[in-house]
């Protein structure tokens, strides 16, 4: 994994469709680390995360044409990855230990929040961890209510009520 490959992600995918393993390895090299880290923030069990990453790239190898050709390949990979993680959790019947709680808010974060998100970041920050987890799963991760309920290990009804509560709180905070 040393040679620099100049092909774009989309070009790699079309090469993979022709059975190009070098392209597949390059795609894996580019995308498996961040996917691993991002999935780790949803699930603290390394074995489960690794299996989800493996399943994700297996799915990519088998159906590279599922990528529609528009949008970021990384976003497409994330969509597969988070669903494979949910499958994995369901298969192993493991309940999800809560994702790590926030630690001290650093100066860097304050700058980030102030410049990039304005009030939204602060409002998100003030949500309870339960509500925030639901917002993250549905809004930011793009999951359906049912998928979010599997990921978080709570009933779908709870996902809906928490989402509407979070929406109310955010609306008030941003008003």
């Amino acid at each position, binding site marked *: 994994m040393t040679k620099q490959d100049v092909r774009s992600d989309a070009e790699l995918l079309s090469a993979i469709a022709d059975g190009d393993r070098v392209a597949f390895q390059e795609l894996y090299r580019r995308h*498996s680390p961040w996917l691993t880290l*991002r999935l780790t923030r949803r699930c603290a069990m390394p074995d489960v995360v*690794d299996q989800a990453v*493996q399943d994700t790239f297996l799915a990519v*190898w088998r159906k590279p044409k599922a990528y529609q050709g528009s949008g970021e390949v990384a976003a497409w990979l994330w969509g597969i990855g988070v669903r494979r993680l949910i499958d994995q959790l369901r298969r192993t019947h493991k309940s999800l230990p809560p994702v790590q709680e926030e630690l001290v*808010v650093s100066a860097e974060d304050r700058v980030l929040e102030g410049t990039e998100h304005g009030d939204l970041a602060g409002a998100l920050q003030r949500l309870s961890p339960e509500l925030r987890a639901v917002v*993250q799963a549905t809004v930011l991760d793009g999951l359906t209510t049912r998928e979010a309920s599997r990921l978080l290990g709570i009933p779908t009804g709870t996902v809906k009520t928490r989402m509407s509560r979070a929406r109310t709180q955010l609306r008030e905070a941003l008003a």
Partner: protein
Amino acid sequence: MNDTAWHASPALMERYAVGDVSHAAACSIEAHLVSCADCRQLVATQVDAPRTDAVWERLLDELDAPRPGPVERFLLHLRVPDHTARLLAATPSLRASWLLAVAATLLFAVAAAHVGPGDGAIFLLVAPLLPLAGVAGAYGRTMDPAAEISTASPASGLHLVLVRPGAVLTTTVGLTLLAALAVPFDGVGAAAWLLPALGLTVTALAAGTVIDTGRAAIGLAAAWLAGAGLSIWSDMGGGAALSTAARDLAAYQPAGQLAFLALVLVGATVVVARRTTFEMEIA
């Protein structure tokens, strides 16, 4: 998408990797990573290379492993243990071609019952033979591609004896039952063929502890056809219609049904008692 001025600093990425950032910052980083290859490259240094390499190795193993067929995948989906799924998927009489042949035979018997003479006569003659043929096809060197593997496999004899015929009987008997619903029976229950079918099948398995199961099945099928044919022939010689003659077969009379029930019980006892010979037979 490189027009964004914002990039994550190495220090921030490091803290993201260990979970030491606020929720808002993490969301921000994650949204950015989706569209920024440079930052993806940067964060990649935060994951241990041995870890991603190990996943890659396993991925390659999985790519090179033969992919289970649709039947096997379906069984695995139902949480059937993988060795049992492989055993079932390799059963000749569970293949699509076999099941199609069974369905075609049944279709013919049902059609004959509606169009030809003798109502369900042909159905009553043929139905008991289908499960027998299916179970015979589940064994033996000539038909089973997995015979050599079964020889070396440590599965217990009884497991091997029960799993395949169980699955074969379920599919074949199920198909036959469906077909039986479409046959206009007169005076004989639509399930009357069931006990003869089971009787013949279990007897073939019991005989399989002594001789080859396939040969035993052929012998039993011949005996059934000869006995039934003789009975029908002599009945029709006495002026009876084909339908009456088939219905009057001893096997479909109460005494005959009881006899086949007894055959099932005796055969099953023999199979269980002599189960170890199945490993011997295949070997």
